């Protein structure tokens, strides 16, 4: 029997393909959908976990809270999560840029608090046009970030010290702006109206959420097909149609489910729409522009970036300015939640939540690896925990401990996956 098998084996053997001989140890993705699966498995083994841990965490968190409180997965609560994650999420987006450089910005929460005070004092105390005040506030954030970047890039002070000083200093400036009154009430108009809790996309119309979902799915499908076509005609490897379809269907399931759930309540909060649009723009900037390429290069190797003619100091200043700008925008979002600028703005665990969101979402603390979508995924986790614990009437002390544990877990995953990648020659 065994002899017979041996005899037949040569016949079953596939003749070697007539291509240039390649080192058999090389890791090349096979053609077609099967190659996609094997590549996925190999990436998992090599420690390139991508978004997998965070999606797993999200499923576990949602299951636990749903078992504890059946209201957790209700439409109203999901709208809540989506609305409240946008503000901190904006801070996290800015942090993703800084983390890609392998640096940290500890001032974002403080700058966001200052931004709400600046906006309130411009628009309320000085009676400035609301939209103009928004622009000036964001410019203030950008200028503050650029100052941090200057001290870091040009003077050579470690970034965490500069931004720690900023953390204290800008909190002080905020308190000075709000001296006497302690808080200012912001009018419900202009951008702040759009950012309010009762502001929904297309005025709560049922169609709104589906329009957004369709836009997203169509953009992915058309974009992928155009890219495939260009690659095919240029003769370089392209994504197989099967893979494009799987990705599109996966996004469609997520998008339309989300639209359905949110529509059962009031629809998509405008704050979330702005947050998502920001993510799309930032993703484009990081992956498809020379600026984004330079950010990744500086995060990967400063020396290589410098030799390639990249102005490293300028990139650092720009990235910190972006972080400051997003901190200011996030501050406006957070102010829009309550229509007040208070002394408490930007205090508490806001900074830790923003950093945690970026890291939990999969952006490495060690620089050079990550994407802005990690701000969305990470914020979903963070905000789910916050909202869930609020639902269960948990004390703030418990919230702090759980969020701390989740942050630690995320950093552990980041460190371990980095080590695994190095041992399998991928970092």
């Amino acid at each position, binding site marked *: 029997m065994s002899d017979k098998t041996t005899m037949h084996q040569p016949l079953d053997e596939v003749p070697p393909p007539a291509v*240039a001989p*390649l*080192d058999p140890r*090389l*890791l*090349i*993705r096979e053609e077609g959908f099967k190659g996609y699966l094997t590549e996925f498995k190999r990436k998992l083994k090599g420690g390139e976990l991508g978004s997998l841990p965070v999606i797993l965490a999200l499923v576990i968190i949602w299951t636990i809270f749903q078992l504890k409180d059946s209201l957790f997965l209700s439409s109203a609560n999901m709208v809540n999560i989506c609305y409240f994650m946008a503000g901190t999420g904006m801070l996290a987006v800015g942090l993703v840029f800084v983390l890609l450089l392998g640096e940290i910005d500890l001032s974002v929460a403080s700058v966001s608090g200052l931004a709400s005070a600046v906006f309130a004092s411009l628009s309320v105390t000085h009676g400035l046009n609301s939209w103009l005040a928004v622009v000036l506030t964001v410019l203030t954030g950008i200028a503050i970030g650029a100052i941090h970047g200057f001290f870091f890039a040009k003077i050579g002070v470690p970034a965490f010290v500069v931004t720690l000083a900023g953390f204290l200093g800008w909190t002080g400036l905020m308190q000075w702006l709000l001296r006497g009154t302690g808080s200012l009430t912001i009018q419900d108009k202009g951008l702040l109206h759009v950012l309010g809790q009762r502001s929904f996309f297309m005025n709560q119309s049922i169609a709104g959420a589906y329009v957004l979902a369709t836009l997203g799915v169509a953009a992915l499908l058309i974009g992928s097909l155009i*890219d495939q076509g*260009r*690659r095919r005609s*240029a*003769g*370089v*490897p392209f994504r197989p149609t099967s893979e494009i379809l799987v990705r599109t269907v996966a996004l469609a399931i997520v998008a339309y489910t989300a639209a359905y759930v949110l529509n059962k309540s009031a629809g998509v909060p405008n704050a979330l729409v702005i947050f998502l649009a920001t993510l799309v723009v930032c993703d*484009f900037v990081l*992956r*498809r*522009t*020379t600026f984004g*390429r330079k950010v*990744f*290069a500086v*995060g*990967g*190797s400063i*020396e*290589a*970036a410098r*030799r*390639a*003619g*990249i102005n490293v100091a300028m990139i650092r200043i720009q990235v910190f300015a972006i972080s400051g700008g997003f901190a200011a925008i996030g501050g406006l979002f957070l102010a829009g939640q309550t229509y007040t600028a208070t002394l408490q703005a930007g205090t508490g665990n806001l900074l830790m939540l923003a950093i945690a969101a970026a890291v939990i979402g999969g952006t490495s603390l060690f*620089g*050079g*690896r990550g994407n802005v979508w990690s701000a969305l995924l990470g914020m979903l986790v963070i905000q789910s925990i916050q909202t869930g614990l609020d639902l269960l009437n948990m004390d703030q002390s418990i919230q702090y401990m759980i969020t701390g544990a989740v942050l630690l877990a995320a950093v552990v995953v980041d460190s371990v996956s980095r080590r695994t*990648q190095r041992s399998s*020659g*991928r*970092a």
Partner: protein
Amino acid sequence: MSATPVLALRGVSKRFGAVQALTDVELEVHAGEVVALVGDNGAGKSTLVKTIAGVHPVDEGVIEWEGRPVHINRPQDAQGLGIATVYQDLALCDNLDVVGNLYLGRELLRYGSLDEVTMEKRSRELLNTLSIRIPSVRIPIASLSGGQRQVVAIARALIGDPKVVILDEPTAALGVEQTAQVLDLVERLRERRLGVILISHNMADVTAVADTVHVLRLGKNNGAFPVKGTTNEQIIAAITGATDNAVTRRLARNAEATQ
């Protein structure tokens, strides 16, 4: 070989404080010529390369490019002329893929955004013409072996269409097969009519691919030899200064005296 050298150094000197790193150094590189630059540690090889690459401007002497004198004060000046340098530490970004590294700092754009397709296509063409074998142009540099990184670094130098390529110890950290690949690549650069300056400690490598060997000793020229008709011993003698002994000095003095 063309009459005018692409790159020529005439009496180049360089001082760092009290240290005279280079004294009256002469060097000529023609198109399609591989010039090996050899010398002991501290002989001034790296300093010489850095003056050509624009890292250190020269103190005295002239650098001629295609026959006319030029000033190279910054790395960008050298790049602008068409001098590409591959340093010993390859300076590649581990997190970027091969295409990203090849085009880093001179990305191709299409409607203002990165033209990944064309960059990938040209990268594959370039690597193919150089017979460079790597698994995929879309895997991060971190996944490549030392030899593969070296050839990627050299290929990267070719993206800007240079006329002179400087290779600083390209085979120092490589195994036998990888060294062979890099030396093959050097020959292909010569076939493309590029001038190549090859710095190496390894005599076997030098004699395998170089046309001319320039020896530096204590910051001065200590002989230029055509590889054909020169023995390794002669070159090593020039490197170590074994030619500089009591007998040769007496000969030189006697020659001066008779003049």
